[in-house]
């Protein structure tokens, strides 16, 4: 088990290095931060001064080594826009993002999983069809369309809720609703399909055949098995908690990490982008580790396999 986790952590570290390197190359080679931060009308000598100050004239490999050297010393760099430490910029955005994505995650799970289970247990019924139609519609409507429609109805027409901004908990309702609906739909569909898969397995028949009441067959035989694939998709969802709300943050003027990422990428503000990527990659890698751990917990077959993987 120890060796298994050593491999996992080594892989995670390599993944993060890969992410950071890839982003470095892409961002450095695809655009000049000076021009993007100072604008297309900035005089040439102003651009030159900016480039020089930030070392943008140095050879790319030099900049790369420099960057990793700094990371090794625990410095994550500064934003080229206002010179503030990048980590500071990112950290001050995290609470805002989590204020949307965490409740949304809870709602997705609370809505999607029961709906999926219910639909699977009543396969082919009217309710099943209705749930699945809603689910398909739910994840096909682009989130910005859904967001705009919610705003038109609940903010502009009914005046019940604010249309954007971050001043109170009421401002969070529509963004959370937007995020939850699409995600719940995906989760419902996935859960239903996982549940159907499990319900068709011979061991479910075995359980019924030995006289286990149906309710108990579902709760103690089907659900633990259906949880295994569902945990995978939940892991993905956890991984996107950090920067997965770009569109919703834009529509609702919500100052989260996603919006910061878009702005930072547009400005080629490398240090900030890398900070966010590190955060996202670490969340993703951690959630993968947790998922693996949960697999072991949920699926005894993998528990023994993990030891020699």
């Amino acid at each position, binding site marked *: 088990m120890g060796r298994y986790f050593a491999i996992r952590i080594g892989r995670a570290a390599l*993944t993060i290095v890969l*992410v950071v390197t890839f982003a470095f190359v*892409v961002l450095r080679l695809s655009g000049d931060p000076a021009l993007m931060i100072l604008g297309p009308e900035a005089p040439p000598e102003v651009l030159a001064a900016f480039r020089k100050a930030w070392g943008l004239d140095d050879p790319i490999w030099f900049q790369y080594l420099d960057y990793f050297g700094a990371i090794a010393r625990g410095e994550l760099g500064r934003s080229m826009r206002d010179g503030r430490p990048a980590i500071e910029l990112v950290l001050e955005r995290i609470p805002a993002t989590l204020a949307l994505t965490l409740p949304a995650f809870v709602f997705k799970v609370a809505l999607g999983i029961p709906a999926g289970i219910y639909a699977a247990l009543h396969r082919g019924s009217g309710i099943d069809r209705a749930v699945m139609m809603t689910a398909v519609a739910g*994840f096909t*409507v682009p989130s910005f369309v859904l967001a*705009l429609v919610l705003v038109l109805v609940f903010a502009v027409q009914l005046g019940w809720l604010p249309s954007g901004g971050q001043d109170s908990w009421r401002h969070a309702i529509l963004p959370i609703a937007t995020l939850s609906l699409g995600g719940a739909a995906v989760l419902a569909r996935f859960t239903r*399909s996982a549940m159907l898969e499990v319900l068709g*397995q011979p061991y479910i028949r075995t359980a019924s055949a030995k006289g286990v009441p149906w309710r108990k067959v579902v709760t103690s035989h089907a659900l633990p098995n259906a949880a295994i694939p569902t945990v995978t998709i939940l892991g993905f969802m956890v991984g996107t908690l950090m920067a997965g709300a*770009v569109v919703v943050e834009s529509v609702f003027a919500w100052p989260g990490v996603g919006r910061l990422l878009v702005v930072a990428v547009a400005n080629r503000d490398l240090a900030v*982008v890398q900070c966010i990527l590190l955060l996202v990659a670490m969340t993703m890698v951690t959630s993968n580790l947790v998922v693996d751990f949960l697999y072991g917990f949920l699926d005894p077959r993998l528990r023994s396999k993990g030891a020699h993987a």
Partner: protein
Amino acid sequence: MTDATLKDTKAFSSDVDSVSRKENASRLGSSVRRRISLPAIPVSVALAISWIVAMLVIAAFAEKIAPYGFTQLDLRNRLSAPGNAAHWLGTDELGRDVLSRLLVSIRISLLIAFGATAISAMVGTTLGFLAAHFRGLVEQLVLMLSDFQASMPFLIMALAVLAFFGNSLPLLIGLMGLFGWERYARIARGLAISANAQGYAVAVRQLGATPSRIYLRHILPNIASTLIVSTTLVFPEVILTESGLSFLGLGVQPPMTSLGNMVGYGREYLTRAPWIMLAPATTIVVTTLAVSVIGDWLRDRLDPTLQ
């Protein structure tokens, strides 16, 4: 195998080879039964199939059936409402015929969605199988790539492609193909590992079947249902992601058009000229619905565990 069994005689042999039949008799038995007893195609599935066929036909002949050139402007006739004789679905912010643009968009979007889904399914499944087969270093490499893919915001990937290679359609398809492959890889790997551990694959291997034959003929059919469901999830996601990219200005670029692009640019006109966005958005929803209906139906047909 005792000689005194009936099952190896011709009387009971079917077109399936007897070894896997032995290991998997009931599954194959029921699938044989299924092949024999084709249940009638339900109405919803028939409707879904006809919709997809219609979309394919439109995609094939988009420019022939479009009443106008899709870039043809008419600045004096901007944002005209649908339902007039000249423009059934109205015109957009440049006075272009929304119907003509919709038809061409269907072609582009289907191309992207089918192309990308196929690429991600093939790449993902292959890598998943490779990981499951070789284990060790190969597996770690595949898993690392998949971690990388999952950790890298798609925005950056899209940016990389747009920045380095310009915005050509094949590249965009390739890019979208990269989207979601890791999910297939994980599913394929997981399922292949557990299938490998199950009796039938072991037995087939002992009989000397080549690995590719084992994966393609024996493991793939057994995990097909899960993969198909994933496909029906990835397909709409590709269309949606493309529209999300259009939202950020990184998707299909003008003068080219796509469903996502129409929705992305049309969002500013949601109150002023909703028809610009409504037609493509409806197309996306209905097409996805059709894909899901067909996917569910196929899943049930292919899934040997459901009777």
